Every structure is written in structure tokens, then in C-alpha cells.
């Protein structure tokens, strides 16, 4: 795994060792394995689905059927290992790659695709760009673009739960780039002072668009940033689902027991471009990417499952086919909705009830559309 330039001879890497469970050959020390076999298989299927979704959506974007996509290829173990390690009642504060978390929490795939299309079936009423979904029924909080804003929000939600006496631990995901942002700092600091039951998961995927991790921070690990806030920090192999899941369980238990927040660094890699708008060849070489592709988290868990004889290669292929079919059907169903939500949705949800401006402006817009249909058509 590429190392960052050390500032103190790897001291902090030793203090925050990179924990993993699955060895390269797929074997694991049974003492390290806490995840029941059926769950391991289940999460493998989720990872396969996540990958299928991401790949297909990028295709749709290339075909001009959706405008934008940002996914988690290569980071599936980090996303699914963490979400699966939490309780259903726990709230999730995503950044923008954790769509698998929304699906895991019950967002229908077709609803997700409608969001990407921003069409009449979009739960977000076409208000947000693709990949900024919310799914309240699954306590998957609304995705925002401004980096790291969700971190203090997760702290606040967990705080509220504690005030109410609820055993709820909030989880928030963010990238290593986000640790440079203001809100990572305040979130972690507030959580530390008040021992808030929150799990701060850093997907350290090596890059923030074109900015490599060593231009993001001089700290040798992300986990050591916990020291600044008097909170617990840990570093885990983010491509090892068993390791991520175990670390999440530990952190959740700590939080729930009143021992405060954890900063969990999951070391992983953004295998693709930042998003469909990006071309990573402009700033990084193929060797690095290839090295990481060999460490693919799905292959990794797959090797474990076959080492444990839990799935056969045919079954794996079956999962893939099944996932592909689910995605195909979801796209088909989603594309059957009208391309646009109704005109009045433009003004819905600004306030609980529209103010006079919104009402007047809707009338103004209706009149404009009536006068000239080009108002509703992009050039």
C-alpha cells in the first residue's frame, strides 16, 4: 500500500497500526472473525450489487441518460462494513459515495435511479443533483455537496439522542480531503468535549479529486488526528470488510457505553475518477491504480468466502447476474416516469408553507410557460 512521506519515521503508523483480518490468500485467523458466515455472504452480495450499480450508472452517464454520477468503486468494503456494523436505529450522515448505505437501509433501487434522473419519480422532487439522495425511512440523512458539513450535524443528532435518552449512535462518512475542512475540526472537537456517541468514518481513499493525500495533510495517519480532540482513533484496512465491520462494532460499543466518539480511518483507494466529470489520467499514473485494483475489496472478501467454502465461483457469478438484472429492471422502471416533476414542485419545500413570493413566482412562471413554451425547454 503506498505510504505517505513520514514525518517521524512511521511512529504514528505504529501507534495506529493498520488492522486487517483477511489475509492475501483469503484465509483469516478465526479469533479475528466476528462476522457470522451468513452475514458475510450477505454483505458480499451487497458489495456486488454496489459495484453493479456504480458501473451501470457510469454507463448511463456516458450515454447521456443521467447527467452525473459519483460512486464508490474500490471502496465498497468501507461503506458496507461500516453501515452493516451499526444498528438499524442508528442515523447515517453520508458524504456522497455511500449510496450502498442508502440501499442497505431500504431505499428502493428504482427510487435511487429516479433520483439520478431527477424525474417525476424522484423522492427529492428534482431538487438535487444526482447522487445527493436522502432516505429518511432508513435514517439515511440528506447528502450535501459542501464538504464535511455533515460531521457536526452527526454529532448534533447523536447528542440529541443522548439528551432524549435514546441508545443511538450516529455514523458519519467523509473523505480524507474532508479532514482539512472546518467542519471536520469542529465536529470532532465538539464530540470530544461532550463525549458524544458518534462514529466518524474517514474513507481515506488517497485522493481528493486531483489532490493526493500528502498534499492534504502532513499527519502520517488520519487516525492520529483523534489525539487533537482527546478522542479514540483507529486505523483499519478499508478494503477488508471483516476488519472494517469489526472496527465499527468496537467503536459503536464504545460510543454506546458512554466512552465517547471514535475517529475510524479506513485506508482504501478511489479506483476510478473522482466522478463522471473527472479524468484522473491528468494527475496520476496507472501503476498506482493497478496496484490497488489487485487489492479489490470484493475479490478480497470473495477469497475469504471461498477459503471458507461459503460460496462457489458459480454462486459468485450468480450474484453478479442477479445484481445486474436488478439494476436493469430498476433503470427500466425509473425511466418510465415522466422526465420532469410538476412545475409547482419547483417551489415546494422552501418553507413548510410557501410564502407569498413563492406563490406569486409560481403564478409568474405558469404565465411565462403559457406565453412561451420555450421557458420550459433548455436550448
Amino acid at each position, binding site marked *: 500500500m503506498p505510504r505517505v512521506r513520514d514525518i517521524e519515521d512511521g511512529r504514528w503508523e505504529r501507534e495506529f497500526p493498520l488492522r486487517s483480518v483477511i489475509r492475501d490468500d483469503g484465509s483469516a485467523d478465526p479469533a479475528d472473525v466476528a462476522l457470522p458466515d451468513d452475514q458475510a455472504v450477505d454483505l458480499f452480495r451487497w458489495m456486488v450489487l454496489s459495484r453493479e450499480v456504480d458501473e451501470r450508472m457510469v454507463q448511463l452517464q456516458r450515454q447521456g441518460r443521467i447527467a452525473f454520477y459519483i460512486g464508490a468503486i474500490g471502496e465498497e468494503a468501507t461503506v458496507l462494513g461500516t453501515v452493516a456494523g451499526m444498528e438499524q436505529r442508528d442515523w447515517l450522515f453520508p458524504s456522497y459515495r455511500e449510496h450502498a448505505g442508502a440501499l442497505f437501509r431500504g431505499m428502493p433501487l428504482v427510487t435511487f435511479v429516479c433520483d439520478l434522473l431527477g424525474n417525476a419519480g424522484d423522492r*427529492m422532487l428534482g431538487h438535487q443533483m444526482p447522487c445527493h439522495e436522502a432516505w429518511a425511512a432508513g435514517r439515511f440523512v*440528506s447528502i450535501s455537496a459542501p464538504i464535511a458539513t455533515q460531521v*457536526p450535524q452527526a454529532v*448534533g443528532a447523536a447528542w440529541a439522542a443522548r439528551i432524549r435518552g435514546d441508545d443511538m449512535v450516529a455514523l458519519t462518512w467523509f473523505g480524507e480531503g474532508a479532514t482539512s475542512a472546518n467542519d471536520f475540526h469542529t465536529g470532532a472537537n465538539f464530540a470530544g468535549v461532550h463525549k458524544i456517541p458518534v462514529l466518524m468514518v474517514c474513507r481515506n481513499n488517497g485522493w481528493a479529486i486531483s489532490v493526493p493525500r500528502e498534499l492534504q495533510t502532513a499527519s502520517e495517519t488520519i487516525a492520529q488526528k483523534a489525539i487533537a480532540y482527546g478522542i479514540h482513533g483507529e486505523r483499519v484496512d478499508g478494503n477488508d470488510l471483516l476488519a472494517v465491520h469489526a472496527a465499527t462494532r468496537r467503536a459503536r460499543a464504545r460510543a454506546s457505553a458512554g466512552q465517547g466518539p471514535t475517529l475510524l480511518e479506513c485506508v482504501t483507494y478511489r479506483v476510478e475518477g473522482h466522478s463522471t466529470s473527472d479524468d484522473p489520467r491528468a494527475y496520476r499514473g496507472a501503476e498506482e491504480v493497478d496496484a490497488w485494483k489487485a487489492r479489490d475489496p470484493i475479490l478480497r472478501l470473495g477469497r475469504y468466502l471461498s477459503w471458507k467454502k461459503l460460496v462457489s465461483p458459480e454462486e459468485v457469478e450468480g450474484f453478479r447476474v442477479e445484481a445486474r438484472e436488478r439494476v436493469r429492471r430498476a433503470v427500466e422502471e425509473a425511466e418510465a416516469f415522466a422526465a420532469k416533476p410538476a412545475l409547482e414542485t419547483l417551489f415546494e*419545500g422552501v418553507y413548510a408553507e410557501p410564502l407569498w413570493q413563492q406563490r406569486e413566482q409560481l403564478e409568474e412562471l405558469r404565465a411565462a410557460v403559457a406565453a412561451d413554451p420555450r421557458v420550459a425547454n433548455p436550448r
Partner: protein
Amino acid sequence: MPTMNIIQAVNDALRLEMRRDRDVVVLGEDVGKFGGVFRASQGLQEEFGKDRVIDTPLAESGVIGTAIGMALYGLKPVPEIQFADFIFPAMDQILSEVAKYRYRSGGQYTCPMVIRTPYGGGIRGGHYHSQSPEAHFIHTAGLKVVVPSNPHDAKGLLTSAIRDPDPVLFFEPKRVYRAAKGEVPEGEVLVPIGKAKVTREGRHVTLIAWGAMWHEADQAAREAAALGIEAEVLDLRSLQPLDVDAIVASVLKTGRAVVVHEAPRTCGFGAEIAALIQERCFLSLEAPVTRVTGFDTPFPYTLESEYLPRAPRILKAIREVVAF
């Protein structure tokens, strides 16, 4: 009926709402043990405990950021920003998050809260303890903006704001925090958000003001009366939603309007009011809508009397508008 100043009225409203609704929590810098640097939350931590009256670390973005999470979860946070001038570190959380949660989630999530903050000049605070940043928030769809001018409205509007389903910026006129005294009923007082108040009737010109500057407008109106000019005075109280009907009704009657605010003139809320009036009262206007405002400079220290749009400058504008 007890007599209160604005700080006492704010304190009273907070206390009553916290008694009424266990979900109401107060957070901010120095608000707990100390009771706030202006003492608006005095005694609340004693009564409601540290869980509900929270001294936070020094980070406005954290105050608002955590308040959002609390609100999402179902609490009703009332964060305090110590001075309105210090709201800018929280700007991203307010403009990008608080204002947009309901919209961007298609109504699945919402984070109503009341962001209380003392604003305005006249206390020798220089430009970091005197600003009036309301225009930034009025320009941001999704936020409500409320400014009381007196203790009764402070209590009634704050109570309404706490019960409002939308996020509210609640600007408190610190220049008259203690000076503006008045009778305030015990127990629940509700003043609806979105309704201006005609505090003085007149037929020659409409004066539009809010907060501390309402007192100046009122003073100017009294002085104008001595000159035979009958000014109608509107205390807007709520800037967003704006009571445009009250403004239009008055200007249709008087044909003239003077808007007063402390913030710099350019792109201040006075511009919006002037734009609205000329859009809606065009054929009734007898003179341009005139703005008496802070100047286009940072808020000064020594010359703050000169800077503030006080009664003498308002009176001058009234006379010019009437003579137009």
C-alpha cells in the same frame, strides 16, 4: 403586567418555552453558567440543566452544525451567536445547510431552529460588534428573519419563532437591549411572524423601519409632526416573510416612503423594499422611495453617531421626500 427590557423579555420567552417543551435546548458560547455575555440566558442552566443549556467550544460553525443535527433528530435548538458579526464562520452551515435541508431532501428532513443574535451599532463596538447582516439571510430562500424593536414583540416573536416549522434568524437590537422597556404580559405571548405593525398613523409619508432604528424613525416622526408632516410609521418586525401588503397599503395612502436601516446602503434590505414599492405602487408614488441607511463602509468606531441613520437624518429625508 410586569415591565421588562428586551433582554428580560428574551429570557422570559426562552424560559417559558423550555418549560413548555422539553425539546427546546439552548446552546452557544458563554450561554450556560454565565448566562450569555448579554445575560439573555441567565438562570436557564440552573433551571434546565447542562443538557439543555449548553456551553459550547468557540466555533460558530460547530454551534450551528450541531444544532442542525439536534433539529434533524427532533429537538428544537435555539443557538446563540454572541454577536451577529461573528455569524460568518457559520455561514456555510446556515446558507448551505439550514436553509436547504427541507428543499434538498424533498421534505424528508428539516431543521427548524432559532438562531438568536444581537445585532447593530450604537454601543461603541466598532465594526466587529455593530454590524447588521440581515440582508445575507433575507437573500437566502429557506430562512426566516425576524427583528423585534421592543420587549413585548421580543417575547411574542421569539415564542412564535421557537414554534415555527422553519429556521428563523432572530436579530436582537442590542442598542436598545436595556433601554427599550415596556409592559409584557406574564405567560404566553405570541406575535405572529410576517405581520408588520403600524405604530403611528399618518398620511404624508410612510416610514419603514425595524429593530433599533424603529425608535429613530418614531422619533423622526414625532419631530416631523411638529413641522406639520404626518408620517405613518411601520415596524416591520419580520423581514422574511415581509408584510408587503402592509407596506403597499400604507404607501398607496401616503404616496411616499422612507426606508431606514443600519446596514450599508448598497444591496441592503432597503433596496428590496424600494424595488417592491416601485413595482407595486408605481402610479401612486409622488417621490422616489428614499433610503436612510448606514454608509457603504465598514461600521466605524468613533464616528458611529454620524454613521447611524438616526432621527435627524431621517427627518431630513422626510422633509425632502415631502417637498419632492
